[in-house]
C-alpha cells in the first residue's frame, strides 16, 4: 500500500460519484414529471421500508394509490395504527356522517313466531335457500335465518339471536350497506337512528291470511294509522308504511294497540334480549 492508492481510491469513488451525480442531475432535468405533491407528503408519512407487503410495488406506489383513493391507508401492514391515523388525517378523510345511520331489519318473524311448512336441507346460506321454494318458510317475505348478513358484516355488528334473527348492534354498525346487498329477501334498510317507529314486517297479506303465516305479521288492521298523527302511517298493499318525511310527528302511541306487535318503537337495538340470554353470553 502506498499513498498513491489513497489518492486512487478517493479519486475513483469521487469520480464514480461525480459521474453518477451528474447523470442523475441530467436525468432529473430531462425526465422531470409533475406529480401530485401530496404523494410526496404521504410517502414521507409511510415507513419507507419498500417491503411491498401492501401488494403495491413499494411505498411510493402505495402512496400514489392512497392519494388517488384506490387504497386505504390501513393497507400498509408496517405502519402502526397511529401512523395510519396520521395519513388518513392528512388526506382529510370525510368527516363522519352528521346523522348516524344503522341497518334495521324489517322482519320479526324468527323461528318462534313464523310458520315453517317445510325443512330446507342443503347449502346453509340464505341465498342458496331462497332459490329453493323460497326457503321453506311459509311467509315468503321473511327472514330465513341462515345468517348471510352476519357473515358479510365485516365489523361483527350483526349476531344471530336465539330466535334465529339477525340483531344489529347499533354502536358497531357503520351503515356500510353490505348486509343490505347480502340479504336475498331485501330485509335490511339503512335508516337514521332517530327513526324510532318501525314496521318489522314485509308481508303483503292481510288479516288472518297474514297471521296464519306468522304471529308478528302486520295484518293491515289500521289501528296504528288511527293512533298516530294523520299522514304518518298509511296502509299500502296490506302493509303499514311509515312516512318518514313526517318523522317528527311519530310517537310511541302508534304501537299501543297493534294486535301483533308488528309495529315497534326502538330506542337503540332491535330485539332486546332476555336477561337469560345475556347471562349465557357472559359465562
Amino acid at each position: 500500500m502506498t499513498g498513491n492508492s489513497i489518492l486512487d481510491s478517493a479519486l475513483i469513488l469521487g469520480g464514480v460519484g461525480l459521474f453518477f451525480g451528474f447523470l442523475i442531475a441530467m436525468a432529473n432535468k430531462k425526465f422531470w414529471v409533475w406529480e401530485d405533491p401530496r404523494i410526496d407528503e404521504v410517502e414521507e408519512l409511510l415507513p419507507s421500508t419498500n417491503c411491498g407487503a401492501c401488494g403495491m410495488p413499494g411505498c411510493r406506489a402505495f402512496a400514489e394509490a392512497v392519494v388517488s383513493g384506490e387504497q386505504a391507508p390501513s393497507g400498509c401492514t408496517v405502519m402502526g395504527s397511529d401512523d395510519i391515523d396520521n395519513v388518513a388525517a392528512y388526506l382529510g378523510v370525510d368527516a363522519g356522517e352528521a346523522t348516524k345511520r344503522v341497518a334495521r331489519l324489517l322482519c320479526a318473524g324468527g323461528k318462534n313466531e313464523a310458520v315453517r311448512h317445510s325443512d330446507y336441507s342443503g347449502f346453509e346460506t340464505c341465498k342458496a335457500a331462497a332459490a329453493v321454494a323460497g326457503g321453506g318458510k311459509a311467509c315468503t317475505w321473511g327472514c330465513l335465518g341462515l345468517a348471510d348478513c352476519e357473515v358479510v358484516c365485516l365489523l361483527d355488528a350483526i349476531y344471530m339471536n336465539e330466535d334465529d334473527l339477525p340483531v344489529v348492534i347499533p354502536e358497531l354498525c357503520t351503515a356500510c350497506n353490505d348486509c343490505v346487498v347480502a340479504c336475498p329477501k331485501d330485509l335490511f334498510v339503512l335508516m337514521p337512528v332517530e327513526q324510532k317507529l318501525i314496521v318489522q314486517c314485509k308481508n303483503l297479506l292481510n288479516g288472518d291470511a297474514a297471521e296464519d303465516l306468522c304471529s308478528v305479521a302486520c295484518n293491515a288492521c289500521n289501528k296504528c294509522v288511527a293512533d298516530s298523527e294523520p299522514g304518518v302511517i298509511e296502509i299500502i298493499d296490506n302493509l303499514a308504511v311509515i312516512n318518514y318525511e313526517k318523522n317528527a310527528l311519530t310517537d310511541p302511541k302508534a304501537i299501543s294497540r297493534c294486535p301483533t306487535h308488528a309495529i315497534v318503537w326502538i330506542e337503540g337495538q332491535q330485539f332486546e334480549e332476555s336477561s337469560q340470554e345475556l347471562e349465557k353470553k357472559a359465562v
Partner: protein
Amino acid sequence: MKGLLSFKHGVHPPENKDITAGIASRRFPFPDEIILPLSQHIGTPAKALVQPGDRVERGDAIAEAAGYISSAVHATASGTVKSIELWPHPNGDMVPSIRIDVDPNSTQMQRPRIIPRWQDVKDEDLSKEIAKAGIVGLGGAAFPSHVKLTPPKDQPIELLLINGCECEPYLTSDHRTMLEYPERVYLGIRIALKALGISRAVIGIEANKMDAVEVMRKAAPDDLDVTVLPLQVKYPQGAEKMLIKAVMGREVPSGALPSAIGAMVQNVATAANVATVFETGQPLIERIITVTGRGIRKPGNWLIPFGTKLRDVVKHCGGLTEDAAEIIFGGPMMGLGQANLDVPILKATGGILILSRDECKRQDILPCIRCGKCLDACPVFLNPQLLGILAKAERYEEMASEAHLSDCMLCGCCSYVCPSNIPLSQLFAASRAQLRKLATP
C-alpha cells in the same frame, strides 16, 4: 346404445321411467277450486280480464298477454271467479292469482267458437292465433311459443327440431303424448313449419323410448320431410343446445339463440297442443302430466287442468306413502322442490315427482376435493369447480366475467356427480339471483 348421436359429457342417472311408462293417460276429475297464477310463463305477467264474481266457462280467456313476451291465461274449468289475490306459486313466491270456484254441476263444455282452418291462415298470422291460445313451451321453460315462431328476419330458420327426448328420469308425459297422439304431433309440426316458412323437421327421441320411435315413424305422413331420430340416452339430451349438437353436429354459439345457426326447437307436447288449437279450438288449458315416484301410492299419467292444486292431485292419486320425503314439480334433475300443498299446477309442469326417503338420500356436504368430475359432466364445458369456489367466496362479478356463469343451463349434472355433494347448480342459481339484484339498483 353406443353409436347413436349425442353430445359430449352429461350424465346418466337411473331412468326409473318404467313406473309410469306403460300407464295410458286418463282425464283427471275437475277439482273444487282452480288457482290460475297470472305468471305461468317466462316474461311479463298477464293482465286479468275478469272481476271477482264473474262467471267463466272452460276455455274462456281470463287474462291477456301484457306485452310481446307474455302469454294469455284461460279458465281451465267453468265456475265463478272468487278473488284475485296473492297465492303461493311453485317457485316459492306469492303471486297474484285468479281463484275460481269450480261449478260442480257444469258440463265443462267450452263456448262454441269459430275455429280457423290452419291451411287458410297466413303464415305470419299463425303465431298470432297461437299467442291467443296462450301456448307456451311445455318443455320446461314455458317460453311463449309465438315468440319463437317469429324468428328475427336476419336469422332464418332452416330446421325445426321436435324435442321428444324427455331426458329427465321418471317423467313419461312426452312419451305418452307421442304414443297416444302421434297425429296431433304431426299436425303441430305442419303448423310450425308453415309458420316458419320451412319444410324440414327432425324428431329427436332418446333410445329408451323405441316404442315411441316406432309409433312416430309409422304415423309419419308421406308428404312431410320429417326424420325420426333415436338418440343416445343421456341427460340432458333434451336441452336445446344438446339436441341441436346431437342432430346437427353444431354448437349454438355461446350467448346466442338457436336461431343463430338456423334451428328452432319445440317440445312434442307443445306441438301437440298447437294442433289442438286448430283442431278443436281449445286453448292451452290442460296437458298430460306424469305423477310418479315411490312416494305416491298410485302413480300414473293424467290429463290435468292447470290450476289444480297439488293437494287435490296427491289425494286423487292415492295419497302419499309413509316414507314420502320430497315433492317436486318436474323431474329430479331440474324440478322445483315444493314446500306447500296449496300450489297450483302450471302450464310448464310436466310431472309431479314424489320421492321417498331412500330415493333422495343425501349425504353431508364435504369440501371440494378438486376431482374434476364436475368438469367432465358439464355439457357446456364450464368449470363448475371454479364457479363453485367463486360462489362461496361471493365473487359474483368474477363468476360472470371469468367463469361464464351466464352459459350455465342449471342442468344439475355437476351437482349430480359431485362426490362431495356440493350443491353446485343451486349455488349458481343463487349467484345469478344475486347478480340480478346487484344489477338493478
